[in-house]
């Protein structure tokens, strides 16, 4: 199995079953981004300059700012780097973000989420962010 792909169990493997469903980590990271950007107070998703640059040249645009891995039990471990809006309660927003992302990912993939680590990479005014080309919105 590809390390970028996770498998969703669709019941015991037996004759006549339709087979396994595989979800690529890129898909999970897209779900994470789409869920995260809707959280009030989150301005953008994105890592640091080096990470963004690597994502740019490796054409893995959708992975930018989100890292998806799995623990021993096969549950998702998610790390998300965000840019937050000045004036919001950062800790509260991050907590909301954790819950929303975990809920959305487990709802859409049917697989539990072990942890969602949020890294606040920057704080900006809402209008200031619009003028920065390096930090992209998830859409």
């Amino acid at each position, binding site marked *: 199995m590809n390390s970028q792909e996770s498998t969703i169990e669709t019941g015991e493997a037996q004759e006549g079953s339709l087979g396994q469903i595989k979800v690529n980590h890129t898909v999970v990271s897209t779900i994470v981004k789409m869920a995260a950007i809707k959280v009030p107070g989150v301005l953008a998703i994105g890592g*640091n300059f080096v990470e963004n640059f690597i994502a740019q040249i490796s054409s893995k645009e959708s992975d930018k700012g989100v890292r998806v891995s799995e623990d021993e039990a096969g549950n998702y471990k*998610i790390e998300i780097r965000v840019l*937050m809006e*000045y004036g*919001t*309660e*950062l*800790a509260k927003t*991050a*907590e909301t973000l*954790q*819950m929303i992302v*975990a809920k959305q990912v487990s709802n859409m993939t049917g697989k539990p989420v072990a*942890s*969602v*680590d*949020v*890294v*606040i*990479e*920057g*704080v*900006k*005014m809402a209008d200031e962010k619009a003028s920065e080309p390096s930090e992209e919105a998830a859409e």
Partner: protein
Amino acid sequence: MSELFEQANELLDQLPPFAIIGIFAVFVLVLLGLGSMLKRPPSRLTAFSSDTGSVLVSRKALQDLIRQACLRDEWVQAARTVVKISGSKINTSIDLRLTSPTNLKETSERLQSRISELLQKSLNFDQIGKIEIMITSFGKTDVDEIPATPDSSTIQAKDATLSTAPRNEDSEHEN
């Protein structure tokens, strides 16, 4: 293994002394670079951890947050912040350009309490160390252009350190 050592020895014998010194200097520089990289302070601080995961804040985010808090003050024209994380404590130093030299102490004290309140409320940080404020200029002079003068004076404000540099008349005339 011994052959390899002999080959290396022969190679060193063939090399001129300045090349050996050069190689040695590069080796030392690489070691120093690695050492400084390992000694670098952590660039992230854990705000809290729970069953759902951890929330970490980067040094840049803290600097952004503090800078924005300063810029919201009506007397502050520009601000440059440096955050140092030592253990779980945050030490901040801020260079400020104020609109006018009046209300120096009040502005600095107000900013200190605002920043400490912000870090406590927004990120649940209770380990707030020193908040050093350095007034570098007034008016339109760029904060980045003015170095901190060695004859700057320091006065104690609450439990944090407040430093004020004397007004830089020359640079103000330039602008």
